[in-house]
């Protein structure tokens, strides 16, 4: 049916695993993003490509209750990533992915704080997964 394993021999992403060195993280968000990217794309052994990721994270309150309490938050994330050839420093591919994770807010600060932090970590996991998918689906291009 036309599908063939992307990582298999002859697949367009053959050899991609372990060939990408993601730039050094600077914040807790980018630390989690790099960790998930290394999990999905392999830790760079002999990197051919470098990848820079620009993150933009924003939190929006919604589900306002009758007494004006914010009971739900969406954490929105946009990641613009640029793949470059480490040798020539030339841009090879550029992609933009975005998504959101959500968490509830209750009267319990400890519960809400843990939910908020988990939502940020999940957002980085989701963005890293979407970057990986975007790379695989476009792996024919580089």
């Amino acid at each position: 049916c036309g599908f063939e394993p992307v990582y298999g021999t002859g697949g367009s992403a053959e050899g991609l695993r372990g060939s990408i060195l993601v730039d050094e993280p600077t914040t807790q968000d980018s630390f989690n993003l790099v960790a998930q990217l290394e999990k999905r794309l392999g830790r760079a052994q002999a990197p051919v490509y470098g990848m820079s990721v620009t993150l933009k994270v924003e939190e929006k309150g919604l589900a306002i209750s009758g007494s004006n309490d914010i009971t739900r938050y969406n954490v929105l994330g946009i990641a613009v990533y640029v793949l470059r050839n480490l040798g020539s420093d030339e841009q090879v591919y550029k992609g933009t992915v975005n998504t959101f994770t959500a968490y509830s807010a209750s009267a319990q600060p400890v519960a809400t704080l843990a939910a908020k932090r988990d939502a940020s970590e999940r957002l980085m996991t989701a963005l890293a997964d979407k970057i990986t998918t975007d790379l695989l689906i476009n792996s024919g291009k580089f």
Partner: protein
Amino acid sequence: QQQAVETASLVADSVVFASGTQELRASGNVEILQNGVRLRAQSISYNGATDTLVVTGPIYIIDKTDTLIVADFAQLSGDLRDGVLKSARVVYARQLQVAAAEIRRTEGRYTQFYKTIASSCHICESDPVPLWEIRSKRVVHDATERQIYFDEATLRVLGVPVFYTPYLRLPDPSVKRSNGFLFPELRSNGDLGVGLRTPYFFTLGDHADLTLTPWVTSKGARTLEARYRQKFAKGEIELNGAVTDDNVSNLDARSYLFADGTFALGRGFTGKFDVELVSDPGYLLLYGYSDKDILDSAISVDRARRDEYIGAELIHYKSLRDGDDNRTLPTLVGDATYIKRFSPSSLGGIATLTAQTHGHYRRADADPTSAGLSRDVVRISTSAEWRRDWLWSNGMMVAAEGAIFIDGYKIRQPRANPTLAFDDTVEVTPYAAIEWRWPMLRQGARANHLLEPVVQLVLSKNSVSGEVDNEDSLLVEFDEANIFEFSRAPGVDNRELGNRLNLGLTYTRESHSGWKLGLTVGRILRRDDLNQFSNSTGLTGSKSDWLVAAQLKVGESFDLINRAIFDDEFSFARNEMRMGWTTDTFQLASTFAWLEADVAEGRPTDTSELAFEGAYRVSRHWTLSSELRYDFVNDRTTEAGLGISYQNECAKMDLSVSRRFTTSTSVSPTTDLSLSVQLAGFGARGIGGGSFARQCNG
């Protein structure tokens, strides 16, 4: 004072010179360039003895500061900086035009205009009256201070005089920062009455500024708002605050302070602080400063490197919610985390070691109802996680994972009732997992398709110890990011146990015409239900609800994300949608959130809210905007608003009315109206939007 001798270059169709008179007369497309000043005219005559130029027009003078002077006749100094111009027009930064019968330039610095009209609006032959203009007897522009001083100025709107002032000072368009009034805003609010906010901006040196905004309302509320900002070599701070004397509350003075700052502390560490104080709960919302319902002042330090993260944070909470008692809520929460990632040479793969301490403190010392109202907790958690992936030649990926989490709890003032004590304890939680993944790609003619099935078998302890009081894992989410996490609980107190099979399938279609569709389906199959989660999470039962998450993107203009959790009978536990659609004539953003009622999550009734905000550019200058937030469960509008704005190249007017319907002991429903007018051409921060500029038709 001997001025520097400068050379000027001149080009003309013809030049005539006469002996003994040191005169040069050039005519025909004359152009003079002299240290950055360019003059174009029909003819000039230059007298070397008196070093003056007599220029006949039409004259165009453009100088280095992007200022254009147009005149019919002029007598200028040799260096083109001083002199008199007749029936001239000066255009500053291609925006602000000042026309005058006569312009006198002196000392290369001052430009004095007599009988002037100043405006930045385009004037068309068919309709010569500009939207606004300032007529004044005399105007002086000081090129060094970059300020414009008006004497006896009248502001006219559509030719009608609306405002007179004997003296007015405005910054010229090249100024980025200058002391002075910012544009006023008219605000009216159901509870506070009508008032005019007139902000005044102080530049305090190059690295700090202060904005003071007095605001008096018709119902006697007198407020002074302040914003102070300062940048340091290694950091910056911003303080926002206000003090109010009103008769709405019984307090004699109401106030709030929000201060935050970020500093680079050296060796890669970043320090942040955030202080949030308010005098009484309703103040922030009533005066529109913030809709936060819980204040969190925090101080934190952290550093992130490729394989190491160090972070510590101390937060103080103060709830503004009705019915919250800040003594029995954990209002002091502290965390410190150290994470190390490396690739163990013997085992390969990636190992992650984590050490974390957490503590939270409740001021209350008594817990009569044994509900944990005085509980203080200190927890130390250490964990080791390891994962290794193998890639087979057929493109299959198999991964082995292992982890062990050790959590030690020290409780102070546990619940009095011994059966519910949840006292000191140590929890050890091991996991082992095998993950199988086989991503497939089809590069079709019209689109590329990626299909990625994932199956993960997880083994773990099969019984819940029940020794730990669940405080940090009460709000659980199930989404495409944690299908393959060992524990879907957000915190530590209720780590997910039991053997299970995590199934996930992601299908992505990217058409060559710019359509992108992403679909993820997930489900958890458990050997036995340890009943760790409440039903609204969709994770209950031996077979979890279906998780379906979809994203549809069309180029850069349309983006819809929907995430739903429903069981086999299609009864939804959760359904959330975010949609954004922008074209060059309209923008629409909408969110929908449906959450099943769940007392454990502090949600006694279902949540079902639709919200949207839209803006539609009706014509070149007019834009309508509206916003609505509707609560289906209580069948009531929470918030609604309408806005209209007019913008052209020289002015921007925004009129908006919004009504908030929520009520609480400290806040009643109120309607808020705001009108603000901005004139372009003064100060560098223009109103932007070239596409709004007026065009003369015909």
